[in-house]
């Protein structure tokens, strides 16, 4: 495994300066992500307009929406916020606590709302 503290990518530390060459690489990446975000958003809107809720296809589309959202979020965080270019330790410091909290929150809200829904539709 690569030792992160040995193979440092410090391209975004305060002391870092980018030359024209590096700028070109970064801009190329930015253009790629821009195109990707636009296309994914367009697909989302078209699916939202043409697939009605409650149809047989809808559950698939719903999960597809969530997957596409996570793809978009991943690219925004990794490239636009360049967390992907930060040190691995910082990356995990940001992402792991957040992911743990959210997974717990989702677990609680989904089970509890399922239960409430069942309760209300049974007794009221």
């Amino acid at each position, binding site marked *: 495994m690569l030792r992160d503290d040995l193979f440092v990518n410090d391209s975004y530390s305060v002391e870092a300066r980018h030359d024209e060459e590096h700028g070109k690489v970064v801009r190329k990446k930015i253009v790629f992500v821009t195109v990707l975000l636009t296309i994914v958003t367009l697909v989302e809107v078209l699916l939202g307009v043409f697939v009605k809720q409650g149809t047989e296809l809808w559950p698939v589309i719903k999960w597809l929406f969530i997957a596409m959202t996570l793809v978009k979020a991943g690219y*925004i965080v990794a490239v636009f916020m360049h967390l992907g270019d930060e040190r691995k330790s*910082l990356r995990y410091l940001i992402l792991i606590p957040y992911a743990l909290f959210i997974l717990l929150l989702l677990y609680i809200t*989904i089970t509890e709302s399922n239960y409430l829904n069942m309760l209300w539709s049974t007794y009221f």
Partner: protein
Amino acid sequence: MSGEATKTIDPKVLWGGGRSPFSVSYGKMMMWFFLVSDALTFSGLLAAYGYVRHSYTGAWPIGEEVFHAFPFMGTTHLPLLYVAMMTFILIVSSVTMVLAVEAGHRMDKRGVIKWLGLTILGGFVFVGSQAWEWYHFIHGSAGYVVTAEGDKAWLTTDISGKSVSEVADFALIFNRGTENERQVSGAEAINIYNNKLQHVQGANMTVNEYGPPQYANFFFFITGFHGFHVFTGVIINILIFLNVIRGTYDSRGHFEMVEKTGLYWHFVDLVWVFVFTFFYLI
């Protein structure tokens, strides 16, 4: 036992203090920590929305049926198009922001001014678009009346500012969207309207024409909280923009402030990506 202690370790490998172990500045790390806490807040809001929606046993409004208006297009049915446009504006302003950050790393002051200026412009356009959307959501369409018997009857035409007897073809639709849908018009409809308990049009905090009151409450809170973030982001961007023009960061030797405000701006875009999916699409 003394194996570890006697082994010589290259001092360059060890972190010996004096610089951040994460190789980021104090300010940038604190910005990240703030963003994590803010992300938890927004996740909490969206999770609460999902919780209420999922536990609700009646029909929940569908995004494309609520948001189908576009400025200057009257009543033309254009589902989600306006929100899609807002999303695109925010993505574009995020792109101009990341280009400003990129220019900052090359110490290209003119590039930073150009891209940051465009970012601020995009932010204003987004906030303005949201204001229009709120106006339209609150104003609503023709709406429905709650009859004296407690039934729901939908108006066929918007009568705002007029009295019912002035409106030609005034009619009410009962059981809209079901098999028993029936339309009442003429004097009978006017009579029902005059004896109504309530005319619900648009949305406020207690009642709205789209669905349960929580729907409008969550709309106001989530998009409002996000809009407030965009507004704050624009203000911070303007302050940084003025500093860039004054040459503060040239003399400081780096443009990291642009990068930090950029992190915040991208975060605002990130939140919108989720709001767009969970509030408008699903």
